[in-house]
């Protein structure tokens, strides 16, 4: 069994947001429902201000609190691959998983649209789904949270399950530079221009992702929560970095 994981090299990431765009296109996400987001912030006060950014997909945790709290098992840990997925057919929209996720990577988009005009009004759907965009991905699997989302349910990043799960068995790394594997690479990894993202099997000691985590001392976000993310960050201190906890002084607020 593979345990898929992602490594994001913050020294290489340029904050271009191609990953956000690719994810939205691949998964037909609504504007502002960024399964894969790049979050911008600043640290320090003028004149010593640094613009910072931080790419953040779902962490697909080993021990996800969102799965523990779900009262219908609509959100679950896929035993084959370690994905954390949503079953739209079981979700009741209680939002407990959103409350319990320490990373803010779950979305309930039945509320007011953050981005205007509301694209759901531009491309309305008559099939009980959020919208009906002109382009739709060929994959549609509501039991895994793939495809256009129905109303009243929570959504989240799938690690591009519809691609990764079709990869040849036993592959250690999914690298877009290997022609025969590139179709199985998650959209955000495949499109990353500065090659800051890597995707592979964390259960295979010789996988490139495991080597990078070991060699460059990969860290996990908010590891103190015990969720054990399967996304690791390499943070060398050049530009982007894993944000510290919120204990910023008033002067840092900007």
């Amino acid at each position, binding site marked *: 069994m593979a345990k898929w994981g992602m490594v994001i090299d913050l020294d290489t990431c340029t904050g271009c947001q191609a990953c956000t765009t690719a994810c939205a296109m691949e998964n037909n996400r609504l504007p502002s429902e960024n399964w894969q987001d790049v979050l911008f912030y600043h640290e320090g006060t003028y004149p010593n201000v640094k613009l910072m950014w931080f790419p953040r997909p779902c962490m697909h945790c080993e021990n996800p609190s969102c799965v*523990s709290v779900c009262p*219908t098992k609509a959100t679950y840990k896929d035993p084959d691959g370690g994905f954390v997925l949503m079953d739209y057919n079981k979700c009741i929209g209680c939002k407990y998983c959103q409350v319990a996720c320490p990373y803010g990577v779950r979305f309930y988009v039945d509320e007011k649209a953050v981005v205007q005009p509301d694209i759901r009004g531009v491309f309305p759907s008559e099939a009980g789904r959020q919208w009906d965009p002109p382009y739709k991905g060929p994959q549609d699997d509501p039991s895994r949270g793939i495809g256009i989302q129905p109303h009243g349910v929570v959504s989240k990043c799938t690690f591009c399950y519809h691609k990764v799960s079709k990869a040849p068995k036993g592959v250690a790394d999914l690298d877009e530079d290997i022609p025969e594997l590139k179709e199985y690479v998650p959209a955000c990894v495949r499109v990353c221009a500065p090659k800051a993202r890597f995707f592979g099997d964390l259960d295979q000691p010789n996988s490139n992702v495991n080597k990078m985590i070991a060699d460059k001392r990969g860290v996990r976000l908010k590891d103190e929560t015990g969720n054990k993310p399967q996304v690791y960050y390499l943070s060398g201190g050049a530009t982007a970095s894993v944000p510290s906890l*919120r204990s910023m002084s008033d002067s840092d607020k900007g």
Partner: protein
Amino acid sequence: MTSVTVSNKEITSKQLGIMLLALIGLGIAGGIAISNLMAEGHAAYNSSNLGLFWGFPIVIYDYFLLTSTGLAMIASMALIFGGEDFRPIVRRALWLALAGLIGGVAVLMMELGHPLRALWAIPFSFAFSSPLYWKVMAVSFYVISLLILQARMMKADWRMQDLRINAMITLALALGVTAIAGVVYGSQSFRPFWASGDIPVAFIFESLLGGLAFIIFFTYLAYAFNAAAVPDSVKRLFNDRLSGLLALAIFIHLLFVLARMSSGLYGNAEGLQVWQTLATSPLFFAEIFIGLLLPLVLLMYPGTRIRPWAQILASLLVMNALLISRYEYIIGGQLVPLFKGSWAPELLSYAPSPTEWLLLLVAIFLSNAVNAFGEVTLGLGREG
């Protein structure tokens, strides 16, 4: 010396009036709320993906749920420990527990993305790791237990000792529901504002406080606030026991709130900084000074504690304070988003939308209509 100057017929007609008013209110508030929801969907609420996921409807639901369990605890403890003094209010408390729960659950159903799916998806999911699963299961058995107990008391000659087993089950379920409701929040270890082992216990005392306030207020309401019509047995109970218990419950709840506040103000953990905003807000001052301390004074001062107006006022103020308390706890725990907070120090802002306020009215009117229906049809004030 007071005497009963109002006949049962007059009381029944006033209860019918209360039910009619509640139904009219329910029709108006519910009609507008449902029409807003039909037109706008969940956009009619002010919750968002920015971090405030559980808004005012959840506050309303938990408020009514916890009050319901408090009422059931009072009634079942009276039955278990043979408090014949409590006999005049036991049936009313049990029915009120059911009425309140109906109001709260109705609002919850309007907030859920798929309320009908929840009816089967939760019970058959066997999601044993989820506090919400246990909460729903406990609430289901709790409702059945309330109905059985009420049904067994329909006989004119019901005896307290015959109902002890039922009462013990009801008490256990009421305590279970309340404690699990506390676990839903208290188990969120990375939300320090919520997370604490004492939350289930604090919830139990809050429930009792709500139950006591509700039973006093709604007993007077059953007699259309005409103190002269209230039976002497009820007056004795209120003057001798319930006022004192209400004062004690206020004091204990106050201790829990102030203890949480002091540890919150001293603590540096992520999320606790909400206390710095909350503890200086007018709402918090209103809760502490008007909603809790003023009733405490009214109930402790011998000159006022036996006055019906003081008991009604104290109950009403406590009912409001508990709603504020629930709002501050549930909303406050989300004001610092778990992750976005790491670089966006500002607290989120939230205020209930007009539709959310209407849902509060829906819960109030629906509960009142159900309660008045019980008063009219079941003779809840009957002691025999």
